[in-house]
């Protein structure tokens, strides 16, 4: 996992609620056996006409040149539905390192963090302020300080991040290495469980 400390970037706004993982990456693209290449199918059915990648839907944000950047900003309950980690992989592969919303579904939040994509939970009011920014606006996210700032106005909010997960994110550590280091403790636990 790549370490993530700070992001300063434009953002792509998707002001819709309950964006489920079937929209993020439809099931028919889950047939791969690797983690790579999912970005091209991110939001596939919102992005293209008749499932044809040569026919982008002009009104969808990913197809509008004015929107760019490493931050996706979406309405509440982002990532609900299926546990497919492919949703986090497709977001990362597309080039987003953070998703900002007022509410995240649990499994998506874990999946994102396990892949170095930061879920930033902000208040409804702050989320609306971000949506009102012009497309040229930038946001700054500081993982260490747990803050998100609208650069133009300096308005800032802090967000929650589990201290353990924060250490992982800042250093690019992953949970599997941590668990592998705990094997003796786990074996001891198993003996006591029986």
């Amino acid at each position, binding site marked *: 996992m790549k370490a993530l400390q700070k992001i300063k970037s434009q953002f792509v706004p998707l002001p*819709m609620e*309950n964006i489920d993982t079937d929209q993020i990456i439809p*099931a028919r693209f889950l047939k791969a056996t690797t983690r790579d290449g999912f970005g091209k199918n991110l939001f596939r059915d919102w992005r293209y006409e008749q499932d044809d990648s040569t026919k982008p839907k002009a009104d969808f944000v990913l197809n509008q040149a004015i929107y760019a950047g490493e931050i996706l900003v979406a309405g509440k309950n982002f990532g609900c539905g299926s*546990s497919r980690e492919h949703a*986090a992989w497709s977001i990362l592969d597309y080039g987003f390192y953070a998703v900002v919303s007022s509410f995240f*579904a649990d*499994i998506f939040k874990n999946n994102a963090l396990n892949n170095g994509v930061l879920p930033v939970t902000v208040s409804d009011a702050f989320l609306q302020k971000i949506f009102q920014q012009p497309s040229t606006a930038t946001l700054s996210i500081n993982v260490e300080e747990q803050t998100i700032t609208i650069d133009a106005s300096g308005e800032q909010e802090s967000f929650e991040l*589990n201290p353990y997960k924060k250490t992982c994110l800042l250093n690019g550590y992953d949970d599997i290495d*941590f*668990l592998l280091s705990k094997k003796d403790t786990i074996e001891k636990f198993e003996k006591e469980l029986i």
Partner: protein
Amino acid sequence: MGKTLFDKIWDQHVVEKIENGPSVLYIDKHFIHEVTSPQAFKGIEQRGVTLFRPKQTIATADHNVPTINQHLPIKDQLSKMQVDQLIENCDKHGVELYGLGHPYQGIVHVIGPELGITQPGMTIVCGDSHTSTHGAFGAIAFGIGTSEVEMVFASQCVLQAKPKTMRINIEGELQSGVVSKDIILYIIAKISASGATGYFVEYAGATIRSLSMEARMTICNMSIEMGARGGMIAPDENTFNYMQGRAYAPKGTLWDDQLSVWKKLYSDEDAIFDKELNIDAWSIQPMITYGTNPGLGMAINASIPLSDTILDEGERKNLIKALQYMGLEEGKSLIGMPIQHVFIGSCTNSRIEDLRQVAALVKGKKKHDLVKVMIVPGSQQVAKQAHAEGLDHIFAEAGFQIRQAGCSACLGMNDDKIPAGTYCISTSNRNFEGRQGAGARTLLASPLTAAAAAITGVVTDIREMIKEKF
């Protein structure tokens, strides 16, 4: 202070609590399938480690498999590659696989319970959000991502923050024609698609205790559709009767020993939940969804809400967008609206009891000419039982297409897709845009309501069709 059922099982499985962080939670049983496991196998191979406890993982092929001609090679090359990869991975790493052609093959959340692998007091995970199904046996069961599948491979543990607890008490008698699917659709409509996010739900009360195991599984299955980490029901005589004699269930004195342990699995009277919800069973009617998340549901004889009565702007926009996709109008009732497809299947409603209910309703009747009906048993065992009871004949007589076990049109990964723009009454769990095929319009309902529509060709209030209670 007393403990909740959840706390009892959770506390017993915490290997270590990381300071200011999640817990290392020990996992008793791990189910895997072809779609969310290949990257995890690849992951441990790249790290040069082997599966820590391969005997505690059970595999099946379900999401991506065809539901016709399962004895032939899979035509779709990508699907074939994924299923072959599962076979190879299980073989290489010593994991028991109930793949295509095996008499135990089926939807992962159907086979676990029917084989007796799922047991009270266990921690169970699977790379699939509907793992909550197994909670019906008084287990902590929840869906995980592929990185977490890799964690279980490597250490038989996952890192989890302890969720809050919610109890939903349901008391009273159910109306005729109302089944467990209606109960859970009612709850989700009441508290919304995110109403239980951050919580682990225990379903309790006399109504729940009166339900069969199949019915309980349907309820726990859809816990995730209101955002819950999982759902569970305290084990009781129904649970033990269901389990006894199943392939993996303990036998002889081991059974007796386990039984005395399982009987202690309930929430203490003075246990405190972070949230409680009380529901009067009699107020639940047959349900149907009209929107593009499972929270957008209503009593089948009700009218779709008017958008200007919804105060929250986000929710209002959400409803308008959903109705646009669904081609439905606010303020209108769905009763009498023609539908083109009926799908009876999925980990929510593909068990023998579901098939029996459908058969009882359609026996001696024919499906409507303009409706295509697909019925997909949840497992080979369910199909076998249905055949033994002659249910397959009833379905064939009615003009239903009977398929072989798999996830099928619930998520449309294989060829079982609903065409764009058409309406499908589905016993599955999600009505998301494009879930059953690009442009497909899904109306979630119970197997009874689905069967009724198969006969009439229109959205039908089941109570108009039946006299006796199911």
